């Protein structure tokens, strides 16, 4: 399936993200991952995801699938307010820089991550951070959970309506055993 970049001009070149056509794709990736990580940007605080904010969804997802979370920008406090201390917080460029480093042993010192899920970072910034990982972290699979197609990820949703996106997010969570 073909998908288009959400910001019209943000086209990358020959290597484009595979399209997540159904939630099972993400579920399988997460289940198969040995060391997944979830990176949540500041927009997650404001974006509605069904009856909750995207940040609340990410907390549910992290708890359900036991994925460590890195909060970027200044939103660690929002996680703490919700009683969920993230595994770490650091600038979006810093976590990207570490993820591309073959020597980095992860937040817990136990080794590299193999799957990185991202959501809530401004579209154009996320676009370019995915580009770093696409080019310089060849062993890492990246997944965008955002509503818009991120061509530099390994896997991304196409541009979705709010309704379809919410349904997909909900299905991912429930198929991983969450509510």
């Amino acid at each position, binding site marked *: 399936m073909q998908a288009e970049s*959400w*910001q*019209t*001009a943000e086209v*990358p*070149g*020959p*290597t484009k993200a595979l399209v997540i056509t159904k939630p099972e794709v993400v579920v399988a990736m997460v289940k198969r991952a040995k060391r997944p990580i979830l990176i949540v*940007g*500041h927009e997650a605080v404001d974006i509605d995801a069904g009856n909750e904010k995207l940040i609340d969804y990410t907390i549910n997802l992290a708890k359900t699938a036991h994925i460590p979370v890195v909060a*970027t*920008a*200044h939103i*660690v*406090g*929002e996680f*703490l*307010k919700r009683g969920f201390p993230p595994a*770490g*917080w650091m*600038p*979006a*460029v*810093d976590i*990207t*820089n*570490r993820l*591309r*480093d073959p020597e980095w042993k992860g937040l817990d010192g136990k080794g590299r991550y193999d799957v990185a899920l991202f959501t809530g*970072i*401004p*579209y*154009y*910034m996320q676009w*370019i*951070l995915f*580009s*770093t990982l*696409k*080019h*310089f972290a*060849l062993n890492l699979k990246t997944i965008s959970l955002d509503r818009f197609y991120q061509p530099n990820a390994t896997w991304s949703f196409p541009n979705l309506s709010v309704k379809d996106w919410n349904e997909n997010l909900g299905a991912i969570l429930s198929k991983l055993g969450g509510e």
Partner: protein
Amino acid sequence: MAKKALVVKAKELKTDVAVVKDFEVSIGRIIDETWTEPVGPTPFPSITDLREWDFKLLHRYKPMYMPFCDLCCLCTFGKCDLTQEKRGACGLNMAAQQSRIVLLACCIGAATHLGHARHMVEHVIEKFGRRYPLDVGGVNVQLEAPITRLVCGIRPRTLGDLEDVLDYLEDQVTHLLSATHTGQEGSNLDFESKVFHAGMVDHVALEVADIAQIAAYSFPKADPQAPLVELGYGTIDTHKPVIMVVGHNVISSIGIIDYLKENDLYADVEVTGLCCTAHDTTRYSSRAKIVGPISWQLRFIRSGIPDVIVLDEQCIRADTMLEAKKIKAPVIVTSDKNCQGLQNRTNDPADEIVADLVNGKVPGVLILNSEKAGEVASRTALEIAPKRKKLKIVPSVKGIIEAAKKCKLCNDCTRACPEGLPIPEAMREAATGNVQMLADLYETCVGCGRCESACPNDFSIHSFIIATAGNILKEEKFKIQAGRGAIQDVEIRNVGSPIVLGEIPGVVAFVGCANYPHGGKEVAEMCKEFADRRYIIVLSGCSAMSAAMYKDEEGKTLYEKYPGDFDAGGIVNVGSCVANSHIAGAAIKIANIFAKRNLRANYEEIADYIYNRVGAVGVAWGAMSQKAAAIASGCWRLGVPVIVGPHGSKYRRMLLGRKDNEKDWYVYDARTGDRVYVGPVPEHLFYTVETKEEAIVMVAKLCMRANDTSKGRAIKLTHYIDLHKRLYNTMPDDIHLFVRTGADIPITMKEEILDILEKKGWKEGWIPDPTLLPRLIRKRKE
């Protein structure tokens, strides 16, 4: 020939480090027998002379590339697909390609400032002569050209001396640009070193351009009391003919003001502008006005208020002619770099040109003579204003509501908008008669017009936003302090010690363009935050304007509220983009005036000093241009970190430290030669943030330096922790990296921090006399 001689002479000097007196350049113009300071190791450095220094920085701050495109398309071998470790037909890989593009951008930036400087210097020499003295601050500024002295090793005394400096700079840009050719440089780190060189060259060019114009045109000379001038659409008397000037090279605007003054017409005409030319018109005449930053171009033209539009160079919209035609305002272009396809009328009589413009026979003209351009612009404005009657093209709210009903809700506009503004939703609301949502976009819209180009209905979406915002624009009435130029030597003497010891927690420079993620208000908020915390705030360019565009409860702007002194709690507008040189210059002056380090051709040592001791940080919140890239590069080589807003991620390369790699953060103790761990100070050299809150906390953090005294470090840590707690709602997780000894711990947080240190297994260290340069070690251990 002359350039070659200059370089040869410089090379000879380098073999005899720091002892050559009475430095004489053989092309014969720079003979300075009075400057007794010894010549340092790198006069007129070539593109490799400072490579080792660059590599020291690049070792700590390894480039992280963020490719903007998978391809290279620079030559006809290509396009080449460089994804995932592929190489192009020339053998280049992606890291080298990205750094090459960064170098190209910085060469464009440096060449632009340099072209500007060359034009300025030639022009003022023609007017005032080569022997005209370079007075940039009278007795208050003995160190008139710190960057030039540092880089070139000469002390320019007159306008003519600047020509030699420009020769050197042009030579360097040519070499740098040539390195980007297919099949030249192949190492990304060498490209990066060249990027730093381009940045350094750029800083010299900025300085040359600004000190030439300050001296020749008597701009405020290092004046903390520079006059408050008017800024904002609402300050313009629309009953008068209005001349709008846009760009960066003030020469033609000075031609206008001079003509109006000489003919006693200045009170009858409004001269107002955008971008840096506007800054510089107010430095020349406090009666001139500023409309606003670069992003106000479309909205101001479409308002119909300008009767004549005068363009010089840089940051001008390429579609100005099209926009101007719609409001029937003639355009006068005045720069050989920006001719807009117009006929060159420089040698025609002014009467004829004015008649052709007023009668609409031609939409605009090219005039490459500032006096003639000044006369033609002034007379045309006076004659055409009654005819034009401020013809505007902003639609009525009623018309917008009708148009909104036809909106296809196709999303093409929002997908084209750099800010991703919710235009379709606003249109849907407008169709019901409620235009508030459209009006609300005003604050964030950067005025680029991309939405309009994308709209299948050809809606003037930007105009819709302006029209519905209605009074907001008219109420834009602010005061900004005119650009003061250099920082006085005595100011440096007063703040040198508290800055280097860390008691003034930092110098924060807000610079650059207006491609903001959430409007300009965030710039003003950040300035206020740090001014209230007694940092020194310096501003330039569009950022200086944006900071003026917000008022407190008493109706005062930051410039009315805070002093313009280079001192704790001061808010200092140095001026236009070229005045950025005074910010770098101030850091250099601290090393020289306060610390008595030799300046002359002593780049590496001074940069090492600044890097380890001067807690300065640049914030380019809306940076977008190649010039901004070049300016930032000049800061990096000097060891000054730069933070950019989220759009700055598109500069496609960051220079990031790794605080988790302890081995990266050792320096030499110059007293003993010991290698000492000093923590990640400053953590990054070039870094893009998502949010204002993140930027604020990072500014506080990046102001820490290896040399901070315990008292200074405790003050800096207090700000960092306090801001982190307020904006992140928690303690930072890296405090232990910044506490070197128990005395560094802020007294009010002692218990809490001791507890953290214990958990982290922190060990007491010591505070060295830090340097990255082994040659500065005074006494080696046996």
